[in-house]
């Protein structure tokens, strides 16, 4: 029974990682901007859910409806005020700009809400399904299902809609896309906004599962970078499967070998994949040189 429990726990954890990574891989894949403030965006989402629940008892899933437009606006502003001005300025400018946003957000949270850690305490947050001898956390299961659903929806969006196809065109060849009258700036704006909404949603869904504090984004942010590179830059399916692989590796190595080495093990898998398949599991070979090839 313990094996089943380990697989369930690994998949649920992987779902969490995937959910966080989807927005990052989208922004990474299209804008080629490494958003180092990604973890802090997640933290903002978690605090948003916490305060909506704490102040007005708004259930977590309902707060997603309220907060998604707010996140869209937030993404819009961050793109317009900062990211847009760093496009084409070189890696160093983008790194410092996004790290700067992260530091500002983290410290603003600290000033506003102190360094105390908080949890959403409700019957829902503690809900458990007991299937046989296996414990399944309901909020984690929901996060997992949403991760799969968001991946599917983005897949459909990118493949079936004109806007999605335009985004893919920009990924394959920005110059040619511009020649086809695709407004690059608009595509970047759209993508950054969608990516921000994804991570905001992730923050809201994870809020009932983890202690919330200003520095929580650091740990999750690091894992999501591993997931994105492992899955292949810009690949939605890669982010999902990459997340699940990291989750399973972490739980199994932590259980069978040593808990303090679990991160070392998923980094080992990460290094192995990069050596054997530098483009990641679902990335296209040479994508890092000529563009990211495909975005599915």
């Amino acid at each position: 029974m313990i094996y089943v429990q380990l697989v369930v726990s690994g998949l649920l954890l992987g779902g969490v990682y995937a959910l966080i990574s989807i927005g990052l891989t989208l922004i990474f894949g299209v804008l080629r901007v490494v958003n180092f403030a990604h973890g802090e965006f997640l933290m903002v989402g978690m605090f948003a859910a916490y305060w909506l629940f704490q102040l007005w008892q708004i259930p977590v899933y309902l707060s997603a409806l309220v907060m998604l437009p707010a996140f869209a606006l937030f993404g819009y502003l961050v793109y317009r005020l900062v990211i847009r001005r760093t496009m084409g300025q070189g890696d160093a400018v983008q790194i410092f700009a996004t790290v700067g946003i992260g530091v500002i957000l983290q410290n603003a949270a600290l000033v506003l809400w102190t360094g105390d850690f908080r949890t959403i305490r409700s019957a829902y947050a503690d809900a458990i399904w007991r299937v046989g001898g296996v414990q399944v956390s309901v909020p984690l299961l929901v996060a997992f299902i949403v991760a799969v659903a968001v991946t599917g929806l983005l897949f459909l969006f990118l493949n079936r809609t004109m806007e999605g196809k335009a985004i893919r065109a920009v990924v394959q060849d920005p110059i040619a896309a511009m020649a086809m009258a695709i407004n690059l700036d608009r595509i970047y704006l759209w993508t950054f906004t969608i990516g921000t909404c994804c991570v905001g949603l992730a923050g809201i869904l994870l809020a009932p599962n983890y202690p919330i504090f200003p520095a929580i984004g650091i740990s999750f942010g690091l894992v999501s970078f591993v997931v994105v590179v492992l899955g292949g830059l810009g690949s939605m399916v890669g982010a999902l499967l990459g997340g699940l692989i990291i989750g399973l590796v972490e739980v199994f190595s932590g259980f069978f070998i040593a808990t303090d080495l679990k991160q070392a093990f998923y980094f080992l898998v990460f290094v192995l994949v990069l050596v054997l398949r530098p483009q990641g599991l679902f990335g296209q070979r040479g994508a890092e040189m000529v563009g990211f090839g495909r975005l599915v």
Partner: protein
Amino acid sequence: MKRAGWVIMTGLLAGLLGLAQGATASNHEVRIGTIFPMTGHMAFGGNEGFMGTDIAREIVNERGGVWGGKKIVFVPADAPDQTAATNEMNRLISRDGVKLVIGSYSSAIAFAASAVAERNRIIFWENHGVADPIARRGFKYLFKTNVNATGTGGGAAVWAATYLSRTLNIAPKDMKVAVVWEDGTYGASVGKAAFTKATELGMKVVANEGYSAKSPDLSPLVLKLKELQPDVLLVAGIGQDAVLFWSQAKKLDLNVKAVVATSGGWGVPDFAKNLGEGANGVFSSDFPTEVNPQALTPKTRQLAQEFIKRFKARKGTTPTGNAWLAFSGTMLLFEEVLPKAGSLEPESIKQAAFSLDLPEGSMANGCGVKFISHDQFDGGKNERAFAVVVQWQNGEVHVVGPEKFATHKSILVPLPKWSDRK
């Protein structure tokens, strides 16, 4: 016109110099550096530690300050990690010219910051960091007012082998114990002390596991412990990892008969605030909080009450062991050491500190004071500092052992199963 310009310039410069003089020097102030992790992972503890330190400053200044009316002014530094601790200490010493620094909530910060103080030959007054190696580097400018890891970690094992053994009716040699610790400077040192003591006492140690306090998930650790079915957990967590571990233990149905933590994240108000009823019954071999007033001298009894009142007014909660350490250690410095030293010169402070010989109950948290000579093992450590055992009861921490200091009786031994809790 040209002349007028010069006059204005000179006047402005003189004004600026005067302002600068007022801002830095002043003969009516005693400037002391403080270093705490005010931001980052340990911010909750750092801020609480600073608050305890600052309440001591407030009380002493209200009573007239030191050395015939000089007010104490803090020059604060924020050190979220060890690199920042080193940089900020250099800043405090070279730019701000402080000659004494109080810290630091975290063993890791204490470790790094005290090394800079030592190089610059200024006193580092540590009220918190428990890791044994802090005072085992032969430093000559370090004073550590609190108990060390051997006291808290070892104390946890002793509590399990004595009180819990009796209450649960399991002989120490039959008691299955799991030792779990975060793998930073603090947890590794406390975990090692707990493991060593449990082994010495002949207990069945079924696990000795480290984990990263920054890990966003601890489910593999919880599942491993669930398989091993220990009777008692001895745990050293530093921050939110304590909440994460215990809430995942609940979700994954890890049931044990008792938990003895070693302060850190298991002893701060946020632990109970986040876990609610789930926190009740958890023991912690911890720094003394509000001890039995009978164990204090009349002077410190009044001081302890004053501290509780002011802390509640600022934070809205009763102070935990961490805040008590900060307050008690800083009051000791301001009320006993500085008046005797007469200045911030390191040699004077050393002489004053080593001259102290105060019985138990002399510090606000019930400890006594006798610093071990810098030439000896554990040099600079207060040998009369001790750990007590506290327990979470209805959202508050109460001292339950040893009997002399206890204010409350233990509850929930053995701990009910999660399925039987509300």
